[in-house]
């Protein structure tokens, strides 16, 4: 924080930090989703997320509060993923090359950043799922069951379960999108 800002109000630095922490907090889910989308095979998504948080904190003075936070944070996360991947490229095969990572990251930065609102809508959307889909989603995400385990449990094929879950996710994504749009009309 600059001295001039503090001269205006002693608490600006603290207030600014508080606001910044809220921004970082609210960005966690989105950042994690972004990093996971760029590192689909990596076990250390959380490590990159953590490193992202550290860098975000160190760079808090560089953030222009007149601008949106999420694209800025996503940019930092994407860069850290690239650094991470460059190390990995030398040692092992990695799923996505840098070009694709850049494409995914660029699009992710343009997406909705209000995950709080999306989560709220999601819970309503879940209630609207057909009972069969809802039960499978529950088993998969609340119980943590694998698709194979669910198939064995309900006596259906793995492919059928996978397809039903996929449709449920697609339906939920559409429902959330519509719900968020509705909230802003």
């Amino acid at each position, binding site marked *: 924080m600059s001295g001039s800002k503090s001269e205006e109000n*002693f608490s600006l630095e603290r207030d600014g930090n508080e606001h910044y*922490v809220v921004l970082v907090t609210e960005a966690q889910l989105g950042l994690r*989703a972004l990093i996971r989308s760029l590192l*689909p*095979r990596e076990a250390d998504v959380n490590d990159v997320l953590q490193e992202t948080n*550290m860098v975000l904190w160190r760079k808090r003075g560089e953030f222009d509060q007149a601008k949106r936070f999420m694209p800025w944070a996503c940019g930092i996360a994407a860069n850290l993923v690239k650094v991470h991947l460059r190390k990995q490229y030398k040692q092992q095969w990695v799923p996505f090359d840098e070009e694709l990572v850049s494409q995914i990251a660029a699009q992710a930065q343009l997406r909705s950043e209000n995950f709080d609102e999306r989560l709220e809508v999601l819970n309503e959307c879940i209630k609207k799922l057909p009972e069969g889909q809802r039960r499978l989603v529950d088993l998969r995400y609340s119980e943590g069951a694998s698709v194979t385990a669910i198939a064995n449990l309900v006596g259906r094929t793995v492919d059928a379960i996978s397809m039903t879950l996929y449709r449920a996710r697609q339906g939920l994504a559409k429902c959330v999108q519509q719900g968020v749009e509705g909230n802003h009309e």
Partner: protein
Amino acid sequence: MSDEEFDSLLRGVLDGDRSEQTLRFLGEGMKGDADRIASYLDMVEMDEMLSCDLNLPGKGRVARDRVIDFSRNKKSRRSSMFTGAGLMLAACMILLLGVLAVMNPDDGKEAEGVAKDIVAVLIDSEDCIWQANDGEVYSFGRPFERGAALWVKSGIARLAMNGNAGLALEGPASVELVSEQEVRVLHGKVSAYAPEEAIGFKLITPEIEIVDLGTRFATSVDGQGHTDVHVFEGEISVRGKGEKGGELLVEGQARRFVANAVAGSKIKNDPSLFVEPPALEQLLAIAGKNDLGLSSGNLKPKASFDYKPASGEEKIAWQDFTLGQGVLDGTLWGIGFGKNPWMIDHAFTRVIPTVTSHSGKEKAGGYLLVRGRAKAEPSVANRVRRQLAVGLPDDYYFAIRARYRGLDDKDFFALWIDVHGREDATHTNVPTIGIREGRYFARLHREHVAIAGRPVDGEEFVLAGHYGWDEKLGKARIALWVNPVVDGGNEPEPDASSVGPARAKGEVPEFRYVGLRMGLYTEVSDELLVYGLSIAKTLPAALEAVVNEK
């Protein structure tokens, strides 16, 4: 690739298929195709939202209030199958709430009506006559909620604020408890003691705003629009109404502010005009009784991230304590640690956030405060410890950047590395560096102690240790550096070194814990201020982690 084939690959990935073939094809299918990338992001985000996990421990009082409040506000959005799980945002909020809990004195406002928002407790009174609306007589231990207006007609009342500041009101006086870190003085005399834990505590009068930077001070507000402020210890930042920059007042200084005047005028500093505020021991005792729920016994495992250092990474684990309370409570900030956060007693260990003066020139706080031993509670040896994500190699370096206030020759603190982190362990025969008998020391065994340099009370230092194996002697060896300077990557000669007892190399245990311990003869007023600590494969990396990670 057809859309059906792409969907099939994406479906497989979401179901857990991470095979090279699937991911390679998926990647090829997305490259240059914005629609497919959008679908992919939709599904990953949805999978992430559905996978949210709230399996996090309760936090401090404020944090628990937040959780309660959060539940109440979001009740309508919980489906039956996601009750208690659900929202990653909440998880993230909890991870970072520690920071907010300290930085934002207005935090608890949202919890009103859900859980009582206690900001202060009456801990002492002398011939006190209260003017209570309902005629209630306040007695010892009486809690006061946020926003409470207190009017002492006569006598003295002492309050312990939940933010660890202490206040003495000398009647006639009236105040409003704005928050645990902020009190509005409407009239009368109020003296305050704000220990390290309460840095940033604020007193507001009709004419001025006082921000504590670690001190003992007092203010009086009379009926003629005069506000006096006296500093008896440490320093405060004070700003008159309408003043831009503010002024730093240090011990022995005093100012008088007159209504509508921009700045204050000098007056004589006079401690005899005010009564003594609560003592540190009183405040810490209250903090212990009103335990914020953050003591080690209440901590449960948090989300694990199983950090494994990359093969070329020289740093193994490190933590910067300058960022705020959150660095202690969650796994969010520390690198290279296991799934549990730091195990501490919050009555005696706290991260102190950085507070800036009105002018912006002075800063206070920005470290982990580890207090000395509490004599009143001999079972409470002040310990701080955390498990590492991986067992340490046979050869490693560890470092700490800190300062010790209140140092005497009986004081002791150790940064230790051990195979376990049991609460009752003494950690005397494991790699250790620290201060002992007025000297810096390192040891592997209580009978093999290396000594170097003499610490200065209150002065910042960097200590580094190197644990390794001496092939010739067939013994483990520890080297110690005090304020080392690495020139061009060359490791300087250690200031001292020592060997451990003879032992076959294969018997070297796997060290998995790091911690701090204060000594038996330390005082509760002793303060070890830790800015950072680290473990690394090289000395430069260990030092970089504590010196540069600011």
